[in-house]
C-alpha cells in the first residue's frame, strides 16, 4: 500500500505531458482537424525545451521555465505547417500529420548534430526542478502527495484542464469552435470564419503539444534524444478517445495511463508483479491504449465533421 502511495507522484509526472498533449488534440479535433502529428510536435517542443534550458541554465535559475515557453512557441510554429496543409490546401489530414511526424524526427536529430555534434543534445543540470510549497506540504496525507517535491507541470496540467473546460463549454469561442467541428456549413452560415477557427484549433494544439514535449524531456530525462517522446503523442490520442473528447475525461484517462507507466518502475517492489519480465511493463501503456480504443471506439462520440475536408461550396 505504501508503494502505491509513493507511486502516485511518479504517475503524476508521467500523466502531465499525456494530458496536456491530449488537450491539444481536443482543441484541434473540436475545430474539425484531425491532428496525429501530436507526436512530432511534442518532439519539436522537447527539443526546443531542452535546447533553451541548456542555453540558459548557466545564467538563470528559471531556465527550465524558459524551456517550457520555448516548447510552446516551437510547437505553435511547427503546427502551422499542418494547419496550412490541412485547411488551405485541403490535404488528407492523416497523411499530413504523418509527414510532420517524420519531419520532426529528422529535423530534431539533424539540429542536434549541427549544434551538439552528436545524435542527442548535451545534458542539462536541473531541468525542471521539483518544488515544495511551504505550509501546504505539511497537510496530513495530501500534503506530501500534492505539495511536497512535486513537479510543477502537474499544476499546469490541472489549470489547463480547467481553462480548457471553461473555454470550450462556457464561452462563445468554445461554442463556435465546436460548431466548426460538428457542422462547418452551419457555422459558416452563421457568419463564423471556419478557416480561422480551424487555424486557431491547430495552433492551440501545437502550443499545448509543444509544451507537453518540453515538460516530458525536462521532467523525465536528462537530455533530448530521438526517443524522448517514444509514442506518447499517440498515447495522448488514445487518451482523447478514452476521455471522450472532454477535458475531465482526458484528465481521468491521462492519470490512468500515467499510473500504468509508473507501474513499470515499481514492478520490482510489488510482490505479485515481481516475476513478470520488464518488457511487459514497457508495453503495458501501449497495450492499454489499444484496449481502450477497442472498448471506446464503437461508442465513439467525437466531433462529427472532424477529419472531413471542409468545402465551402458544398451545400
Amino acid at each position, binding site marked *: 500500500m505504501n508503494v502505491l502511495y509513493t507511486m502516485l507522484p511518479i504517475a503524476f509526472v508521467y500523466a502531465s505531458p499525456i494530458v496536456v498533449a491530449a488537450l491539444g488534440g481536443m482543441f484541434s479535433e473540436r475545430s474539425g482537424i484531425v491532428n496525429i502529428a501530436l507526436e512530432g510536435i511534442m518532439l519539436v517542443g522537447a527539443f526546443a525545451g531542452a535546447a533553451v534550458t541548456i542555453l540558459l541554465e548557466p545564467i538563470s535559475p528559471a531556465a527550465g521555465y524558459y524551456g517550457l515557453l520555448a516548447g510552446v512557441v516551437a510547437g505553435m510554429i511547427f503546427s502551422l*505547417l499542418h494547419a496550412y496543409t490541412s485547411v488551405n*490546401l485541403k490535404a488528407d489530414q492523416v497523411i499530413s500529420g504523418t509527414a510532420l511526424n517524420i*519531419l520532426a524526427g*529528422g529535423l530534431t*536529430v*539533424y539540429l542536434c548534430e*549541427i549544434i551538439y555534434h552528436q545524435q542527442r543534445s548535451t545534458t542539462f543540470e536541473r531541468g525542471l526542478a521539483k518544488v515544495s510549497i511551504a505550509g501546504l506540504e505539511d497537510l496530513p496525507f495530501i500534503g506530501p502527495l500534492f505539495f511536497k517535491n512535486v513537479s510543477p507541470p502537474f499544476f499546469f496540467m490541472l489549470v489547463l484542464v480547467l481553462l480548457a473546460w471553461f473555454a470550450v463549454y462556457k464561452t462563445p469561442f468554445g461554442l463556435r469552435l465546436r460548431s466548426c467541428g460538428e457542422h462547418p456549413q452551419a457555422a459558416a452560415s452563421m457568419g463564423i470564419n471556419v478557416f480561422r477557427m480551424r487555424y486557431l484549433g491547430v495552433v492551440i494544439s501545437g502550443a499545448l503539444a509543444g509544451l507537453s514535449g518540453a515538460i516530458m524531456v525536462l521532467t523525465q530525462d536528462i537530455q533530448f534524444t530521438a526517443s524522448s517522446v517514444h*509514442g506518447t503523442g499517440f498515447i495522448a490520442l488514445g487518451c482523447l478517445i478514452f476521455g471522450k473528447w472532454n477535458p475531465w475525461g482526458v484528465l481521468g484517462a491521462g492519470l490512468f495511463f500515467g499510473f500504468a507507466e509508473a507501474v513499470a518502475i515499481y514492478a520490482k517492489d510489488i510482490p505479485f508483479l515481481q516475476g513478470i*519480465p520488464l518488457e*511487459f511493463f514497457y508495453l503495458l501503456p501501449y497495450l492499454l491504449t489499444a484496449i481502450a480504443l477497442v472498448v471506446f471506439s464503437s461508442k465513439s462520440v467525437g466531433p462529427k465533421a472532424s477529419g472531413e475536408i471542409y468545402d465551402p461550396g458544398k451545400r
Partner: protein
Amino acid sequence: MAKRTSNAILIPIACVLLGFVVASIVLVVTGRNPGGMFLSMLQAFTGINVQVGTFNPRYIGEFFVQSMPIILSGLAVGFGFKVGLFNIGGEGQLMMGSLASIAVALSVHLPAPWHVILVLVAAMVAGAFWGAIPGFLKARFNVHEVVMTIMLNYVALYLCNWMIVSVFGSTDHIKTAMFPQTALLKDAGLTALTNGSRLNWGFVPVVLAVIVYWFIIERTTFGFSLRAVGFSKEAARCSGMKVERNIVMSMVVSGAFAGLAGAVLTVGTFNYGRVLSTAEGYGMDGIAVALVGGNNAFGIFLSGLLFGMLKAAQPLMQSQGIPKDIANIIQAAIVLFVAMKYGIDYLLKKIRPPKQETFDEEARV
C-alpha cells in the same frame, strides 16, 4: 486518359525534386554543402566515387540490400491504401515476421532450399496475423487503424525483444546465435560479385512480391472488390460485396508483405536475430514509398529504389560532414508535398464541370 497517366507520373517526380530542394535549403542554412548530399547519393547508386575516381560494386550491392525491405514495406502500405486503410503498422508486422524467421531458422532443421522457403512463409503468416488484428478491429468495431497499428508496433517491439532474449537465447541482449546457412538468403557468390556487400537472394521474393501485388489488384476478382470497397464502402455493400471481409483480407495481405520484409532483413541482410532498442523506421519508409509510388506496383518498386538509395547514401553523407538525418528530412518533405498534391487533386475533382447541359442535384448550382 493519357493526360491523367502522365500527370500521375509527373506529380510524384515533382514532389521528389521539391523534397531535394527543401533539403538543400536546410543544408545551406545550417552551413553544409548540398553537393555532398548529391555526391553521396550518386555513389550509393552507381558505386562511383566521383571525387576520388574509384568504382566499388559493394555500394551497388548495399543499395539493393537497403531497397529490398523498403519496397516490401511500400507494398504493404500501398495494399492497405487500396482499400482505404492507412497501415502504419508495417513496422510491427515486419518485426513479427522477423521473429517468425528467427524461430524457424533456429528451431527447425531442413535442407536448403526448403528451410529458407519455410522461413519466408512463416514470416508472411506472422506478419499477416499481426495485420489481421487491426483489420478485424476496424471492420468489426470501427477502431481507427492509425492509433491501433502504432500501439501494436510498440507492443511488437517489446514482445519480440523479450522473446529473442528469453526464448531464443540471446546471451548479450543484442543478438541471437548465427543462423545455419540453410536458412539464409545469403550466397557466397553474390557476396563476391559485389565485393563484400550483403546482397542476397532476397531480391527474388521482392520482385515476385511486386508482380503478385500488381496481379492481385488489376487482374483478380479479389482486387476488384478491394478497390470497390476502398472507393465506396456503401456502394460495394449494396452490390453484395462483403465489406468487412475485404477489410480484414486487405490487412492480412498487407501484413504478409511486411512480414516478408522482416524475413528478408533477418535472413538476408543479417544472419542472426537482433534485439532492437527502438523501431527502425521501415514502417515510415513504407508510407513514403507507397505515397510517392501512387500505390501502384511499378511505382512502388521505383520509389522503393529511390528511398533505398537514400538510405544507402546515409553513411556516405556522414563522411561528407552531412548529418545522415537529412535523409529523414527529405523523406518527410516528399510525403508532405504528396499530401498537398492529394489536396490539390481533391480540389480539382470538385471544380470539374458537368459534361452535359442537364445538372445533377449534387452539382447543384
